[in-house]
């Protein structure tokens, strides 16, 4: 049907609202000025949440919870404002989970979603009786609220200030001949979350996410990503809280030095390799982060992204040894500035900090309330309580929560060792900045490429290696860990955890030092057999 100008004029100011759609709460797009109190703290939202839980309970759910999220984001130019309200209800009936979600925040919709979640769970009973689903106990929190601590609220300052900041940083870099800067996909996001469960919890929280990798380019030939800026659970201070121009200048000087090095084609073989902190964070997330998700290890993701080399969790816990005491990996959802940092996860479990790998030995998995009970036997053996590590997460209430990787921290080595010191101490080998990898569907092996790969001789960088590829086997790689950088070489980077069908992606932070590995296989990735 054609819409003419006349039709539009006829429609006039009194255009009727869409009759079928109930009236939700007001969207807050374009609001400026002082920060608003989190929408989810209102009594109205609590009433909606309780109504959804009540609807699911009275429809027959043994357990039910509801999440409401409001997500606002803004781009670097203030031109990509967006706001989304979502609500999702989860219900447990006869050992099956049902889920229903939509965008409408109204009392009627809460009741419909509650019933729909139960109906969906009940439909699954056609498959046959299911073993009872156990939920690890979680403390009940009543009417608690948490706001992620940030310094500069990107929604409370003028978008002009944000735009000016990037414009002037760009102008600063472009003053230098042959240099350019890229800011990546910068977004500032605030998400308000409300959670209520049939066990009586009601909590609300507000979390922030800001920034993107910042890349300095030289003569269209070399590029480096700053290791002090990345997406983080912070406000605008992710940029403004540090002397960015000094960091950029330092990287520019290093790029000029790098450009003077001769370029050599790759020689395949085995090398001792120094990786920078960003490379190590990438390796940790790809080879250890995914593999320690318990649902993935047990085969629940087999039809999607794959399984894990930890294919028998109960037998491997406390037994699987990477063969290096240097490797200690902890997970948390508590660290300040972490992308996965929350006060409660998407099942209302208080955030936790726990060791996944201690001195090379597998000690625990990423768990939710349901999956923690699958390890009850191990926890009993260890005399530890069965509890969720709070890894349930989802991008918004539209998606059902599942196990997503929390923030990861690779413990640094005891000595003061950074990238330059590690290179200086190397007789012959390679030094790599910004490794990117792809793992196979069991995280057993990975192929990768570095943004900048140096050839090192007698402690000096003597050449740039063009087109070097890395062929890594997870277990061998970590067994061949020679040294870890000191605490001052640690940096925090953003990583994405993607899983499920359809795929859902959440962010987490990974903190890692530089590291030195021996016997790393270098290939020419474009060479055919």
């Amino acid at each position, binding site marked *: 049907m*054609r*819409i*003419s*100008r006349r039709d*539009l004029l006829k*429609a006039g*100011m*009194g*255009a009727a*609202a*869409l009759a*079928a*759609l109930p009236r939700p709460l*007001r*969207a807050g*797009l*374009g609001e400026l000025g002082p920060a608003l109190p989190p929408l989810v703290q209102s009594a109205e939202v609590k009433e909606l949440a309780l109504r959804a839980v009540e609807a699911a309970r009275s429809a027959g759910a043994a357990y039910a919870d509801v999440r409401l999220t409001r997500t606002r984001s803004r781009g670097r130019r*203030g*031109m990509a*404002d*967006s*706001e989304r*309200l*979502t609500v999702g209800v989860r219900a447990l009936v006869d050992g*099956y*989970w*049902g*889920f*229903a*979600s939509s*965008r409408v925040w109204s009392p009627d919709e809460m009741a419909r979603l509650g019933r729909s979640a139960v*109906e*969906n769970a009940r*439909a*699954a*009973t*056609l*498959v046959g009786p*299911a*073993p009872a689903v156990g939920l690890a106990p979680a403390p009940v929190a009543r009417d608690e609220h948490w706001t992620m601590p940030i310094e500069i609220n990107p929604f409370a300052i003028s978008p002009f200030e944000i735009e000016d900041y990037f414009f002037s940083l760009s102008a600063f870099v472009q003053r230098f001949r042959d240099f350019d800067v890229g800011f990546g996909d910068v977004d500032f996001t605030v998400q308000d979350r409300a959670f209520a469960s049939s066990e009586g919890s009601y909590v609300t929280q507000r979390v922030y996410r800001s920034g993107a990798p910042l890349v300095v380019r030289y003569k269209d030939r070399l590029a480096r990503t700053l290791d002090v800026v990345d997406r983080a659970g912070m406000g605008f201070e992710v940029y403004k809280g540090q002397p960015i121009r000094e960091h950029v200048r330092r990287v520019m000087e290093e790029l000029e030095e790098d450009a003077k090095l001769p370029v050599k084609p790759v020689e395949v073989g085995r090398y001792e390799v120094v990786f920078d902190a960003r490379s190590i964070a990438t390796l940790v997330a790809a080879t250890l982060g995914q593999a320690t998700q318990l649902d993935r290890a047990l*085969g*629940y993701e*087999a*039809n999607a992204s794959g*399984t894990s080399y930890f294919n028998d969790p109960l037998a491997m816990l406390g037994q699987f040894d990477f063969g290096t005491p240097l490797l200690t990996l902890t997970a948390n959802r508590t660290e300040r500035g972490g992308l996965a940092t929350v006060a409660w996860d998407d099942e209302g479990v208080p955030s936790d900090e726990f060791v996944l790998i201690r001195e090379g030995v597998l000690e625990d998995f990423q768990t939710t309330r349901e999956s923690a009970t699958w390890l009850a036997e191990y926890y009993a053996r260890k005399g530890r309580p069965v509890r969720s590590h709070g890894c349930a997460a989802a991008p918004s209430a539209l*998606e059902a929560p599942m196990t997503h990787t929390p923030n990861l921290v690779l413990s640094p080595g005891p000595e003061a060792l950074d990238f330059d010191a590690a290179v200086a101490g190397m007789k012959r080998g390679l030094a790599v900045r910004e490794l990117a990898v*792809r793992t*196979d*569907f*069991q995280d*057993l*092996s990975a*192929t990768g490429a570095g943004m900048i790969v140096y050839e090192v001789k007698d402690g000096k960088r003597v050449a740039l290696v063009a087109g070097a590829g890395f062929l890594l086997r997870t277990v061998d790689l970590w067994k061949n860990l020679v040294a870890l950088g000191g605490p001052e070489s640690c940096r925090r980077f953003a990583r994405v955890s993607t899983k499920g*069908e*359809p795929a859902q992606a959440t962010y987490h932070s990974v903190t890692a030092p530089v590291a030195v590995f021996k016997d790393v296989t270098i*290939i020419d990735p*474009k*060479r*055919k*057999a």
Partner: protein
Amino acid sequence: MREIAGSDGRILSREECQELLRRAHALAEGGGETQIHVTSWWHGELRWGCNRVTLVTDRRNVGLVLARAVRNGVYGSVSLNQLDDRSLEAAVRAAEWQSRRRVLALRGWGYFPPFPHYDPFANAAIWSDATFGATAEARAEVARRMISRAKTAGMLSAGYLEVRAATTMAFGTEFPELRTGEHAFWEQPYVRWTQAQGSMTVRNAAGTGSGWAGLSSYDWLQIERACDELAERAVQKCIASQDPVALEPGRYTVILEPQAVADLMDVLVRSFFRELIESQGTASPWHLGFDEALRLWRTKLGMKVVDERVTIGHDPADPRLGIVMHPLEWPGPVTWIERGVLKSLGHGFRYAMEHLPGRHALRTGEISYSMAGGDVSIDEMIRTTRRGLLVSRFWNVQLLDGESLLSTGYTRDGLWLIENGQITKAVKNLRFTESPLFVLNNLEALGEAVPVFRPTRREGGYPTPAVVPAIKARDFSFTSPIDAI
């Protein structure tokens, strides 16, 4: 049919979308234009793992991008998923606030003369009432049949069933003088579509074997009908792939099952589209160089680029293929490669206006294609192979070089060695480094073209059906063994 859409609020109807623009424009201040791009979607899903259903869902959402250009302002836009008056008003004000920040500095759409208008292809099979009406119980019944097949075989299965429906519409109030048909050239008529998919991975308890099968269609009945066969195939593949032996990487004759062909050909089909032809100078297998006299990028159009048995194109009338929806898209069939000769390249309207007057009508949309098949069965291909590998599917295919389309990735869920016309053993998975163009130039045989599984990339995203044959080709390059199963 129309009554179904929006009648229960799962997706928006055409009238609801039109009403949205009227309401938004009525709220406008400062004159100028208003545009909206509105999508809505509904998903019904079922997941299972370890033979246990883990989640049954019903989800729906709306995405509204609202743009305003006040008089002498640029376009400012915001996106939201709330459609009530107060939210709309806040969005209109926010978009206007952005619009007023700069004066019009860029060349607008109005620079371009009117385009011929194509009615969207009328008879594309993209909507199925059976899909829109498929209940959670229907999905559970299919899951029960598939899971019980795995249980009977003593295997563990994980799987996913999905039915979805979505709508999209983009239109605005500006440039009525540029309208040559029902819609302005940049607009998107109201389209709604459905998609259904089912897939299943079967593993043995020891984790030493893995099989997979999957299928997508706009029609849920196709999935329902195929589910027993899918389960059987996944189970058989798992049984046959157990305890694989390691094989030296190298060049092998390969028999690629249709799913593996589709996994490999994505980078090729993507290369036909405008992104490459328009971003001049970027690597494309179809560029020859810039012609200074004609001010054109010369291409390989009309040249023989692959084996003459290869024909790749898209016919929206094919009920297995679906979807053409943009008024700029030529609504009839398009042939990319015909008997090995490059026949068409897609491009956007801007490139068409500047370089190809009168020739703007090629596809610019999402990937959907069919590849002509032959008459050789996979059994026959195996029987005629002295030494080679049978590949079930590829995973994580990544483009290494845009000019040669050299790609890398892994085999997954079943790889077997063929010796003297017979499958002799299951082989450990391999990483490959190979180009689909090389494969299509080293063809030995083609099988029957069949629809394959296509994943949902994002909620509300267009389906991208593909119909491809099994392929037998020489000298496929496998570069390293992997232990993953």
